[in-house]
């Protein structure tokens, strides 16, 4: 019982600070623009912290460690370079999105796409894809929180209770302050999770049972040398696919896309763009190290695929005193909450600003209230999806990420291509999503996508290639058809 009290005190302290920052971050202005895009006044450093904390989620904290436990160091190759390339995407997409948002008052991704192509249908499809594929990713956040608290407390805090508790706290500060509160808590949560993760990794290696970096390395080399090499774990085609996928899909997350609107100026986005790849190479080492070196820890039984997502809390309970474990747990919870709050807020703003007005007239003074109600509804949906997780965190997000990547060619074309046409974008998105659905269905029924289609690459690579080609070719066809009609 005393163990539970220790965890409860540390957790309560963290949650109180989060709520206090959320309260501090709330604005006196009572406008939808202030609530959804923080009045477009976020400075470069806060923008960088909120971009990073929003992107580094339960997948980063638990999914990375779990996958690295299974596949070894090769998983660093899967994640690191692609995520560093996100910096380039931030620059290339962030600046035009920021400028268009400021000039034309866009607050959501579908608003920009619909506004620039003058096609409400494209806006609806774009928004629907964002919401549909963000929901499973959202579900991984309470999943992660539930797993962590249950493992750390030895089962005294049930999985769903932990997930429910953290969701409630998140709703509280989101309802109070919207985007500004979300960004402010992201700064606190981001710094906290990275600092704690670094201290934990160093603490793990200097533990007397581990004996330092070299001894741990030798022990792993003697028992499982395959964890050091990529050969046998991942082909170069798979790493190529993920390196392409991350910079394409990450800016398509509605919670990331929306953050391009909140910058106070161009400089904020430029700064975030180069800081991102500066931080990622080192930061991503930490969860991977925990996962890889989890292989030298002896457990009662061999961990199953889903159980391996618990490797971080399992190592914690094995090597850290409870109070230290609870603090690391807080760092991980910070990662979940900073992502989930942004996802919920982004989806709430999409539905409030783009979805509901298509059905009924919504007055501007009511938008903020509706956004708050949607936050509660979306959080409940996330909890329901997390109630009985179907797969590992990595498998869930891989599907969601491929579905979102389909939007990238349309987004680039809308921002940079004068010849873009709404119908071509719609065809491109629908084609891509049909292939994603086919891939999902094939996996479910045990009939993998044929080799001739993927050529050894991850399904996301042919999907992205096909959506680009479809968009390009259908635009050419549409142009010629309209030229013929006019002549």
């Amino acid at each position, binding site marked *: 019982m005393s163990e539970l009290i220790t965890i409860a005190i540390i957790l309560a302290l963290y949650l109180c600070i989060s709520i206090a920052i959320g309260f501090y971050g709330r604005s006196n202005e009572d406008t939808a623009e202030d609530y959804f895009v923080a009045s477009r006044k976020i400075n470069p450093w806060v923008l960088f912290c909120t971009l990073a904390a929003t992107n580094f989620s339960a997948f980063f904290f638990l999914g990375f460690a779990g996958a690295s436990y299974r596949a070894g*160091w090769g998983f*660093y*190759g899967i994640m*690191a*370079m692609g995520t*560093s*390339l996100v*910096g*380039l995407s931030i*620059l*290339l997409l962030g*600046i*035009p999105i920021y*400028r*268009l948002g400021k*000039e034309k008052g866009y607050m959501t991704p579908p608003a920009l796409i619909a506004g*620039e*192509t*003058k*096609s409400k249908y494209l806006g609806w499809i774009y928004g629907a894809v964002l919401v549909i594929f963000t929901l499973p990713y959202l579900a991984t956040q309470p999943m992660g929180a539930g797993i962590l608290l249950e493992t750390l407390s030895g089962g005294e805090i049930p999985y769903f209770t932990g997930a429910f508790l953290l969701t409630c706290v998140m709703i509280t500060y989101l309802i109070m302050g919207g985007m500004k509160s979300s960004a402010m808590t992201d700064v606190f949560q981001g710094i906290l999770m990275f600092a704690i993760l670094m201290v934990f990794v160093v603490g793990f290696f200097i533990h007397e049972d581990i004996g330092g*970096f*070299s*001894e741990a*390395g030798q022990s*792993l*080399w003697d028992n499982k*040398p395959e964890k*050091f*090499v*990529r*050969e046998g774990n991942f082909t*170069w085609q798979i*790493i190529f696919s993920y*390196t392409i996928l991350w910079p394409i899909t990450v800016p398509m997350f509605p919670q990331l896309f929306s953050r391009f609107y909140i910058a106070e100026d161009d400089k904020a986005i*430029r700064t975030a*763009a*180069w800081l*991102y*790849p*500066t931080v*990622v*190479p080192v930061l991503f*080492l930490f969860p991977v190290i925990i996962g890889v070196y989890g292989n030298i820890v002896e457990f009662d039984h061999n961990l199953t695929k889903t159980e391996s997502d618990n490797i971080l809390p399992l190592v914690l309970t094995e090597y850290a005193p409870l109070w230290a474990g609870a603090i690391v747990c807080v760092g991980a919870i910070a990662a979940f909450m900073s992502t989930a709050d942004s996802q919920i807020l982004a989806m709430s703003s999409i539905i409030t600003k783009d979805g509901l007005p298509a059905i009924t007239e919504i007055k501007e003074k009511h938008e903020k209230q509706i956004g708050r109600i949607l936050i509660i509804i979306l959080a409940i949906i996330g909890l329901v999806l997390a109630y009985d997780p179907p797969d590992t965190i990595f498998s869930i997000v891989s599907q969601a990420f491929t579905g979102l990547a389909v939007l990238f*060619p349309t987004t*680039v*074309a809308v*921002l*940079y*291509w*004068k*010849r*873009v*046409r*709404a119908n071509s974008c719609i065809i491109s998105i629908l084609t891509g999503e049909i292939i994603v659905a086919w891939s999902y269905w094939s996996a479910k029924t045990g009939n993998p996508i044929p080799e001739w289609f993927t050529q050894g690459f991850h399904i996301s690579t042919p999907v992205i290639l096909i959506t680009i080609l479809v*968009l*390009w070719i259908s635009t050419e066809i549409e142009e010629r058809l*309209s*030229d013929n*009609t*006019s002549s």
Partner: protein
Amino acid sequence: MNNKTWELLPFWFPQSKNNIIWTLIFLVLFTLSIDFWNWDSNSRISEWLPFWVLYLVVIQFALAFSIWKFSKLFDPVIIERKEKVTEEEPEKEPKEESITEEEPEKEPEEELISDDSNNNRITNIYISDSVINRSIIGDKDDKDE
């Protein structure tokens, strides 16, 4: 390559010579990161860190440096799009302010605003040449040509 030719290129193609150079730099870094020639490497540093991981970290720092340099130059132009012509909404007059007096080399308006605005075309855009030169292609490219 003139502006019309640039416009005919597919949307994923870099829109200026400067951008082509930067694209090549980023492609080289990307290719170097997928070091398939070293795929079965098992050499380690201090017993615990694979050498290829350190190599990848270095590549990423080179990428960060490149993005930092590129971020100082990158200045995309916002494409001004003409309002879509719908039955409910009569065709609007072209905005005068988009063609400024400071642009002596401007093309005749007929060329800037394409004829097929009546074909439900959603992207009839009129960007002055000087804006394209300054922001998409860059002054340097003009000299190169």
